[in-house]
C-alpha cells in the first residue's frame, strides 16, 4: 500500500473542477501533444498546460474512423474519438491545442481537431536534421514564433524571470521522476513500473506544483519503506519495455505483464522514462530550451544518420546495463510506423549483444491477449532456463 498514490488519485479527482474554475477566472488551457513541445514556455506565460492523448479503448478508437481511416494509429484514432465524444474534461476544456510536428499521424490528428472540432491549434515544427547546427537554428526561430503566438493567447509577454522559475520547476519534476525510476534498480522495488507510469500520466494533468509536491512525498514514502530482506527462491526476470507510446488509459500491456508476474525495470517510451531522459535545460532562455529539446533522447520518428550517434540506441543500451534488464520487450502499436520501422534494427543490435528481444505488435482490441501472454511467457521461460543454467555452472565452479 502506497499512501501517496491515493493522494494522486484524489488530486486527479479534483483537477477537472480546478481547471473549470481557472477558466472561469480567465485562465486558458493549452493541450499539448508530443514531448517535443516545451511545456516551460506554456507555464511561464501563465497558461495551464495539460498533455493530451489517450489509448486503450477500442470503441473510442473506432469512433475516430469517421475522420481518418482504420489503417491508422489507434492512439491517434482514439484521441480523435475522445474529442468527438466530448466527455473528457481535459479535451473539453482545452482552449488551444499545441503540437510539435514529429509524428505525421499525430500532426494530421491535430488538423482533424482544427477542421472538424473547431479547436484552435498551434504547430511547432521540429527539424529532421536536429543534430546539425542549421537544424538547431531553425528550431530556435520556430520556438520564437511559437512563443509569439502563445503570447497573444496568454495576453502577455514572456517574462525572463518567470521562464527561469518554470524551467527550474520542470527540471525538479524530471529529477524527482528519475529518482522514482531508481527504485526499479532494486531487486525488491517498493513500487511497480505500472504504478510509476500512472504517476507520470497524472503529471500530464495536475498543476506542476502539485505534481512536484506529491512526487517528493512519494519518493520519501518509498525510501522510508522497510526493504524486504527475504530472498525469493524463484528466479526473477527483469524486462525493459521499449517502443510506441503507451498513452493514459492504455493498460493492456501493463495488465498482461502484471498478470504474468513479470517485472518491468525500465522503459523507453515517450510517456514514461523518455519524458525526462536526456532532457537538461542548461540555460533558462528560448535558445537554451531549443537546444535541450533537440538534444533529448529522441523519438523514433527523429532519425540519426548513423547507429553510432543515435542517442535513442545509446540510451536504450545504457538503460539495459544500468537497470540489469534481461531482455527487451518492444511494443509497437499497429500502424505506428516510426517504431515498427526500427524493429529489425533493434533486434539485430540486441542479438549481437545476446540480449533477447521480443516484439509485441498490437492495438487496443482484446482478442490477442492470449497470444501476447504466450509470447511473453515463452520469453520468460527462455530467460529463466538460462539463469538457472548459469547459476548451476556457477555453483559447480564454486565446488
Amino acid at each position, binding site marked *: 500500500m502506497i499512501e501517496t498514490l491515493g493522494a494522486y488519485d484524489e488530486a486527479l479527482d479534483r483537477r477537472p473542477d480546478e481547471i473549470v474554475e481557472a477558466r472561469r477566472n480567465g485562465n486558458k488551457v493549452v493541450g499539448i501533444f508530443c514531448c517535443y513541445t516545451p511545456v516551460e514556455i506554456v507555464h511561464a506565460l501563465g497558461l495551464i498546460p495539460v498533455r493530451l492523448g489517450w489509448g486503450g479503448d477500442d470503441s473510442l478508437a473506432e469512433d475516430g474512423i469517421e475522420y481518418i481511416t482504420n489503417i491508422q494509429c489507434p492512439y491517434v484514432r482514439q484521441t480523435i474519438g475522445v474529442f468527438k465524444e466530448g466527455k473528457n474534461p481535459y479535451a473539453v476544456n482545452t482552449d488551444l491545442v499545441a503540437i510539435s510536428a514529429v509524428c505525421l499521424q499525430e500532426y494530421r490528428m491535430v488538423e482533424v481537431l482544427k477542421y472538424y472540432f473547431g479547436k484552435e491549434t498551434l504547430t511547432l515544427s521540429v527539424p529532421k536534421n536536429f543534430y546539425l547546427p542549421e537544424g538547431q537554428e531553425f528550431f530556435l526561430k520556430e520556438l520564437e514564433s511559437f512563443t509569439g503566438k502563445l503570447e497573444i493567447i496568454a495576453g502577455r509577454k514572456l517574462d525572463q524571470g518567470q521562464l527561469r522559475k518554470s524551467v527550474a520547476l520542470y527540471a525538479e519534476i524530471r529529477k524527482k521522476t528519475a529518482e522514482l525510476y531508481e527504485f526499479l534498480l532494486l531487486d525488491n522495488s517498493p513500487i511497480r513500473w505500472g504504478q510509476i507510469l500512472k504517476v507520470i500520466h497524472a503529471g500530464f494533468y495536475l498543476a506542476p506544483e502539485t505534481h512536484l509536491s506529491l512526487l517528493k512525498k512519494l519518493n520519501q514514502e518509498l525510501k522510508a519503506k522497510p526493504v524486504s530482506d527475504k530472498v525469493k527462491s524463484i528466479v526473477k526476470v527483469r524486462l525493459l519495455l521499449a517502443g510506441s507510446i503507451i498513452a493514459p488509459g492504455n493498460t493492456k500491456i501493463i495488465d498482461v505483464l502484471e498478470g504474468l508476474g513479470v517485472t518491468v525495470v525500465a522503459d523507453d517510451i515517450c510517456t514514461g522514462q523518455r519524458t525526462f531522459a536526456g532532457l537538461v535545460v542548461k540555460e533558462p532562455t528560448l535558445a537554451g530550451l531549443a537546444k535541450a529539446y533537440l538534444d533529448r533522447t529522441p523519438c523514433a520518428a527523429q532519425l540519426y544518420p548513423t547507429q553510432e550517434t543515435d542517442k535513442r540506441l545509446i540510451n536504450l543500451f545504457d538503460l539495459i546495463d544500468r537497470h540489469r534488464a534481461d531482455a527487451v520487450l518492444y511494443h509497437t502499436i499497429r500502424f505506428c510506423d516510426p517504431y515498427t520501422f526500427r524493429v529489425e534494427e533493434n533486434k539485430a543490435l540486441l542479438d549481437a549483444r545476446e540480449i*533477447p528481444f521480443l516484439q509485441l*505488435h*498490437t492495438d487496443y482490441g482484446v*482478442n490477442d491477449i492470449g*497470444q501476447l501472454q*504466450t509470447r511473453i511467457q*515463452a520469453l520468460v*521461460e*527462455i530467460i529463466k*532456463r538460462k539463469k538457472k543454467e548459469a547459476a548451476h555452472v556457477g555453483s559447480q565452479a564454486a565446488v
Partner: protein
Amino acid sequence: MSQLNEGKLYFAGVDIGSNAAKSVILADDRIIGQAIVPTKADVEKSGVTALTAALESAGISRDDLSYTVATGYGRISASYADEVITEITCHAKGAHYFFPNARAIIDIGGQDSKAIKLDSNGNVVDFVMNDKCAAGTGKFLEVIARALEVSIDDLSRKTLAGDYACPINSTCAVFAESEVISLLASGEKEENIAKGLHYAVAKRVASLFSRIGSNGGDRVFTGGVAKNVGLRSALEEVLGSTLLVSPVDPQLNGAVGAAILARSNKLEELEEVDD
C-alpha cells in the same frame, strides 16, 4: 527409499489448442498413451477429457501420475496440472524427443503458426509467431476447404494433383475465400487453386523461418497442419529443404513436449529432495 528408486514413474502432458485438446502419457521416457479430442467451449473440461482418454489408452489412472504439465492456449484453465508451460517450449522439447538433431520447428496449429529455433538440448533459442489474424493457420485452410466444399484431407490431396500453383494474392481468410470463389467462377481447376493456396500459406510461413535465422540441423514440422501433405510439399519446395514429421501424430508434439518437461521437472525436484 526415495521416489526415484521406487520404480516406474508416469507423467502426463496436456496440450489444449484452439481446435483440439491432446494428451500424452509417458512411462519414464516412453510414450504409453495418447489421445486427441475436439476442444469444446469448456476448455478445462476438454483438457480433462483428453487426459482421461490418454490415461485409458495407457491403462493407468490419474493417481498413478507423478506430474502433469499443461500447455496450449487453454493452459490457463488447467487446475489438474502441476505446472503450465507455453507451447513454444513444449514443441521444442517434443521435436527434440523425436529428432535430437532438430534445430528449427515450424508449428502450424488451429489459430497460429510459429517458427522456433532450438539448441542441441531442445531448448528454445528464439521464436516468432504470426500476427493475430488467421492467415497461414489451420483455420485459414478450414475456411478455404469450406469454400471449395471439400474436406481438409481432400484439399491437401488436390494440391498434389495440381498442374501449377494458381496465384492467390491474399492469405487473409476472409479475402482469400472471395478470391477462391472468383477463381472458381472463372473456370480455374480446383486442384490448381488448392496448390496456389498451399503455396501462399507456405510462403507466409517460410517468412517466419527467415526471421529466426538458420542454425543448421534438421527442420521439423509439427502441429495438426503437419498432417497436410499438400502444405508440407509446398513448404519443402519454398524452403528448399526437407521437413521431418514425427513418427507419432505430429498434432501430439506439444503434448509430448509437455510430458517430457513434466518428467524432467519432477525428476529435478526429486533429485533436489534427495540432495
